């Protein structure tokens, strides 16, 4: 009998647990609604504006939301962030296609801006009335403007590329170390950079290469070209574009000569080559200085410097877009314009290292006086500003990211692993074509 009672008690416990589960289920459905109604009516009648972002923006960290809320006491700014764009962008696409789950402001990476402009312009607010075109770099403004003249995104930051180099390693290899002189070594021509690499290699300290990775070099060369993967009509031309092939071949040559490290950028192994001083130079936008700093041993501070690249180019950067479906699209557009205005971009640069896309910011003290610890207090604001202005008005396409990734990660990196340049190119082309085919 005892057994039976015990079993019954167990059954009751199980039943209680199960009904608790059901209760929670019902309860949480209510929760959702409560939450929503309180967010509409609550917060003391404030208007809530939400931003959906990926990792690199840094508005909150720079205190910009707090500042805006102080200026506009009736506004409450909140953000939702996913660190990596690979995890952020596909959900954004899903949200845009269904026109649901969108935040009041959405961040968009430059690699995706063309695709968004092509597909979803009708779902996004025209921001040309909110931002002042003359404030921004012309090429940046153009990237987010559709053929019909709608500006779907306001530029946040850009990534003008320079060459960061190790003064100590250059010196050891008998190269000049002054940034003007170093810049002159390769001014105007990427092949000169590779020639300098050969000179470096002849007297290089043991275990070091000239550049960090094949991907970084290819990226830099292609970033300085006006036309690369698409032509102005939107046709894919990467295979037939001599500029792309030349960039690939030059990088492959550097790979065969052993001038670049056998690494893929942003992998942990690549990080350790920064920490262990395994290369002498790399193409670097301003944000890369922060990256170098965070991976370097403290004693390497001041050993770096920044020289002008062979040709000015851009790497990375983002935009803010405002979906029409938002409840407060008008207020959101104003906030987006404020966040990307020159003053705010200058603050963001001084606090987070994101270089302004608003050229009007380049004369502000926060930019002109900016210095960086890793580069021995080089005036990085003054070095990068002209490079940003010189960057070509680049033709971008919807699948730039896939093509570029194919050329580097499935292509030129193979040369450093002992494959011939032709094999590497074939592998890249095959991968890219397969990835592009619908």
């Amino acid at each position, binding site marked *: 009998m005892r057994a039976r009672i015990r079993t019954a008690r167990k059954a009751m416990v199980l039943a209680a647990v199960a009904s608790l589960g059901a209760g929670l289920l019902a309860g949480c459905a209510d929760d959702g609604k409560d939450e929503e109604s309180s967010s509409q009516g609550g917060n003391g009648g404030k208007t809530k504006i939400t931003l959906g972002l990926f990792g690199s923006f840094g508005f909150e960290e720079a205190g910009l939301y707090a500042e805006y809320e102080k200026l506009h006491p009736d506004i409450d700014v909140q953000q939702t962030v996913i660190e990596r764009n690979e995890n952020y962008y596909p959900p954004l696409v899903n949200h845009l296609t269904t026109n649901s789950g969108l935040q009041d402001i959405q961040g968009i990476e430059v690699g995706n801006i063309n695709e968004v402009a092509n*597909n979803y312009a009708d779902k996004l607010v025209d921001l040309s009335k909110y931002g002042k075109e003359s404030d921004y770099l012309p090429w940046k403004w153009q990237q987010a403007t559709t053929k019909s003249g709608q500006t779907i995104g306001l530029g946040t930051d850009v990534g003008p590329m320079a060459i960061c180099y190790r003064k100590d390693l250059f010196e050891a290899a008998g190269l000049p170390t002054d940034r003007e002189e170093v810049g002159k070594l390769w001014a105007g021509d990427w092949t000169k950079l590779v020639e300098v690499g050969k000179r470096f290699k002849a007297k290089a300290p043991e275990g070091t290469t000239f550049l960090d990775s094949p991907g970084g070099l290819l990226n830099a060369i292609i970033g300085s070209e006006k036309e690369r993967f698409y032509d102005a009509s939107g046709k894919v031309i990467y295979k037939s574009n001599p500029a792309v092939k030349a960039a690939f071949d030059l990088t492959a040559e550097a790979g065969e000569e052993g001038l670049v490290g056998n690494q*893929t950028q942003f992998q942990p*192994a690549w990080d*350790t080559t920064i920490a262990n001083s395994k290369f002498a130079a790399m193409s670097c936008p301003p944000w890369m200085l922060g990256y170098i700093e965070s991976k370097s041993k403290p004693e390497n501070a001041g050993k770096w410097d920044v020289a002008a690249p062979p040709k000015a180019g851009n790497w990375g950067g983002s935009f803010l877009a405002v979906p029409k479906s938002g409840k407060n699209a008008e207020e959101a557009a104003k906030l987006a314009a404020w966040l990307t205005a020159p003053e705010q971009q200058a603050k963001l640069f001084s606090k987070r290292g994101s270089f302004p896309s608003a050229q009007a910011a380049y004369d502000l003290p926060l930019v002109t006086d900016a210095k960086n610890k890793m580069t021995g207090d080089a005036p990085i604001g003054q070095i990068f500003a002209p490079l940003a202005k010189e960057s070509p008005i680049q033709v971008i396409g919807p699948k730039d990211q896939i093509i570029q*990734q194919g050329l580097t990660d499935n292509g030129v990196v193979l040369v450093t692993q002992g494959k011939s340049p032709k094999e590497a190119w074939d592998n890249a082309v095959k991968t890219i074509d*397969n*990835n592009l085919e*619908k």
Partner: protein
Amino acid sequence: MATRHDTAAAPPGKEGGAAPARPPVEAVPPEVAKKRARLSRRWQRDVRWSPYAFVSPFFLLFAAFGLFPLIYTAWASLHTVELTAPTDMEWAGLRNYTRIFDDDFYWNAAKNTLTIGIISTVPQLMMALGIAHILNYRLRASTFYRVAMLAPYATSIAAASLVFVLLFGRDYGMINWALDLVGIDRIDWQNEKWPSQIAVSSIVIWRWTGYNALIYLAAMQAIPQDLYESAALDGANRWQQFLHVTLPSLRPTILFTVVVSTIGASQLFGEPLLFDANKGASGGAQHQFQTLGLYMYEQGWVNQHLGRASAIAWTMFLILIVIGIVNYVISRRLRASS
């Protein structure tokens, strides 16, 4: 396994008073059956319909949340359709399927799926069985081991990927460092074909061995003690007890883990993705560890070709069906011949 009884013939119990326990319905004289039926209409209703009541929640939930996605992907696989406009379909017929025949990347991925599947699943299940057997002993701190066992399954992707990429690093990785100590040249774990597949498999093994061990352990708990006792009386040692008592008793559970692991291996995508998390989903520069699951993910989420990805998904489904049928036929033959 224990023979099943025809529960539909279960007696009416208390209501029916002293009813016979077990003869099947057909064997009961008609008038008795009639009487019983009258006495226990509720009972019979219960016996007939309760199985459906028990399985219906699954099917209702499936109809609500599983059916539409299945139909959608099946339909999408017959179209050219992009993630950027998933309702904008252009009829493609069987093109997404026929193109697979000369899609080198697909067959490369299929081969990788097979080899990684074998390298990872076989040792994983065997180790899990052994670990479960040990955990079934009387142990000190047994809860601790059970918790530790599931820790890999609970570790976040971000943490696991960082750790494993460091472990398998070519220049500074701990594994190469250890190999170096015993005089083996360092191995390029990410870029060479077999090393990379072994590395990915080791992540799979690490993540899922404890998981399977716990499943085995739960099943071992249900093996009656007296089977072991009588085996021990017959002079069986621990190993023989394991072979002749544990293994046969676990057959349904082993079947379960084999089926689930096979399905899991055929869909493997998380581990190869995280093994090279910065490079999209190509599974290495030469796709050397790209699995079908990863290839499908790449086509669908990275390249945004929903139609192609759906077709890949459905071929994976069909491959499993074929494996299932082959398996069924073989086991039938074996049973018939024995």
